[in-house]
């Protein structure tokens, strides 16, 4: 928990309380030490919060800092709770709700990208169709035999979902996805 992380409490900041379920992308800067991911995940499971996507990697090697990107769903009140609960963890340096940041800047969403590897088998017309669609989605073929392709595709979650759905009737075998990586738009960092 870091004092700077606490939003300056303005009166009536929850004036528009909504009970709608929303999807938010949170970005955490944490010490890359043993157990830190378990603390974050344990908090979600222990308190019954949702994780839609989770991405983790060390991003500043010399400072041993990792960045965790979590996509979660809940009412605004629950998402606010999640943010504060995460901020309470000792090795967490900073928690930012990128979705809220984007809204404040009058943007639709933060920058979010996901990478997926998609394996498709098939012959004949289906195979050609898969290749054509891969092209249309700007997916790259990174492995192939006469019976299969592995596509590498990058994009927003919705694009990847769409690509996978389309590939289903064309011989989809399996998918591996990285989960969402996200940054806020504009020149500023966290």
């Amino acid at each position, binding site marked *: *928990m*870091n*004092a700077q992380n*606490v939003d300056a409490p303005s009166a*009536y900041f929850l004036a528009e309380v909504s009970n709608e379920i929303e999807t938010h992308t949170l970005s955490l800067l944490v010490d890359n030490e043993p157990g830190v991911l378990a603390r974050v995940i344990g908090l979600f499971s222990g308190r019954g919060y949702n994780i839609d996507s989770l991405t983790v990697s060390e991003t500043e090697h010399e400072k041993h800092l990792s960045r965790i990107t979590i996509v979660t769903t809940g009412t605004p009140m629950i998402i606010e709770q999640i943010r504060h609960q995460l901020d309470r*963890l000792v*090795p*967490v340096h900073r928690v930012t709700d990128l979705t809220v940041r984007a809204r404040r800047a009058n943007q639709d969403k933060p920058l979010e990208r996901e990478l997926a590897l998609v394996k498709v088998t098939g012959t004949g017309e289906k195979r050609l169709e898969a290749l054509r669609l891969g092209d249309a989605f700007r997916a790259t073929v990174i492995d192939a035999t006469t019976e299969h392709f592995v596509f590498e595709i990058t994009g927003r979650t919705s694009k990847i979902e769409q690509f996978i759905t389309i590939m289903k009737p064309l011989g989809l075998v399996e998918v591996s996805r990285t989960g969402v990586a996200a940054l806020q738009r504009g020149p500023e960092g966290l």
Partner: protein
Amino acid sequence: MPPGGQNNDHESQGLTPQADECKDETKMTREMTGAEMVIQALKDQGVDTIFGYPGGAVLPIYDEIIQQEGLEHILVRHEQGAGHAAEGYARSTGKPGVALVTSGPGATNMVTALTDAMLDSIPLVCISGQVPTHLIGNDAFQECDTVGITRPCTKHNWLVRDVDDLARVLHEAFYVATSGRPGPVVVDIPKDVQFATGTYQGPTPNPAAAHKSYRPQIKGDAASIRMAAEMMAAAKKPVLYTGGGVINSGPQACQLLRELVSLTGFPITSTLMGLGAYPASGDNWLGMLGMHGTYEANMTMHDCDLMVCIGARFDDRITGRTDAFSPGSRKIHIDIDPSSINKTINVDLPIIGDVAHVLEDLVRIWRSSSMKPDAAALKDWWKEIDQWRARNSLAYKPNNDVIMPQYAIQRLYDLTKHRKTFISTEVGQHQMWAAQFYGFEEPNHWLTSGGLGTMGYGLPAAIGAQVAHRDALCVDIAGDASILMNIQEMSTAVQFGLPVKVFILNNQYMGMVRQWQQLLHGNRLSHSYTESLPDFVKLAEAYGGVGFRVEKPGDLDGAIEEMIAVDKPVLFDCRVANLTNCFPMIPSGKAHNEMLLPDEANDEAVANAISAEGKSLV
């Protein structure tokens, strides 16, 4: 922690006495073994007492304990006892409690006490031994994943694999346990690290500034505090709702709270954990609120137009039905933990900061702006409150033949109130009666397991308080069922000459369980009657203490006087009316203004008190 107290203050940046000592360079860094570092770090943190139990994986630390002076070790009889004793020590002194346990079962036995400290925000530093690093993960003898098991029940924990990290981690552990919202921490030390030699470093003078990520906000936002003052001045039906956070913030916070009450004339109520922050004899005191709170406290909360929540967290025992909780009020919430804000109840004005710091600013703004409460409105408000008070919701039918449990607490209070007395409790009906009928005038004199509701808390907690206050009277108000959960600690009390008094309200039932079975389950008393209780008098004697048994109200005063006079641990078997229920009560699923009052609680009302939805709640 008090402002200017240990490790906590951004503002004064005052060096703690311990830190001063460490200016001595030879102390700052020196070569020693991991086990020596543990002792040195505890001493440098100002620790004088630890509670523990030895075992294979902490033998090197125990070997250092016996070769030193200045650090007293209290040998408990079960590790859970060590944890609760450390909690009692911490709660009664305002300093962190320290426990030392071995690996495996030693650590798992600590889990209840850690969770208890977590929920009640008690600063606790637990040092546990671990199997040597090369055996970790091998299912070695007495191995368990201590950091994994204790992760959700501590504020933070560490497994120290390198002796050169040990001193830093130990000091950090004290900083984390005591700063911000206090809580328990665990430092797990493998046996080879205890034997290894490394460089010891003393505590950093200003750990808050030095810590890389944990820096809680201490000062409240000035504009919000001013707005709070303005809202208070404009309020027509205000109430102050205070909690354990005031006590955690330190004696100065309690002083400022009292000042605020006298400046504003507002009515004040408190949670179970906050009793004593404002004196029970104070004119503005409404009594405890919540499930077994007074009628006046709950009605005031329900009908108020401004609620000022200070260091409390809208717990479910307090709010009752949340959708009917104080519907007409605006709410101000002062709390050091941002995650307490808007967790269950939405508030209008949150102020994040330490209670003492925020109240200091609030009182200053109130005075310097010559603010005045709305006296006319307040007069009407008090008139309303006085009508609720006149309802006399704690009334019970006196009895000349059988001791009523409420009467027993009242007599205990009358006969001990002129002394320096610390009261701990177990969990159940006796706990609620103690909270209702024992008047607490000062903070840190009331030790109870509020959040977790741990039966077996009271006796070790009383031992912890007695160790810290040798000349005080330490009484554990207990139930006949709860006391058996950590009865072995009588042996600890006898060994260390700690004359704790266990005042057992013996009704032969798990009273609160029986009451809920009556309320919820058609009075089918499934396993809530203890058919064979020990003879508590003989039990006391077997441990080397003194036993009393009292069955008649007329004998009570004399026996209590005798109990106080005895300079040994006492089990006082007070036989009370068996089937008394604890009232008033907000039944599960009901709102503050739907209390079940003692004079209305006939069998039919009790049987129908809880609706179908309420039955699934706890």
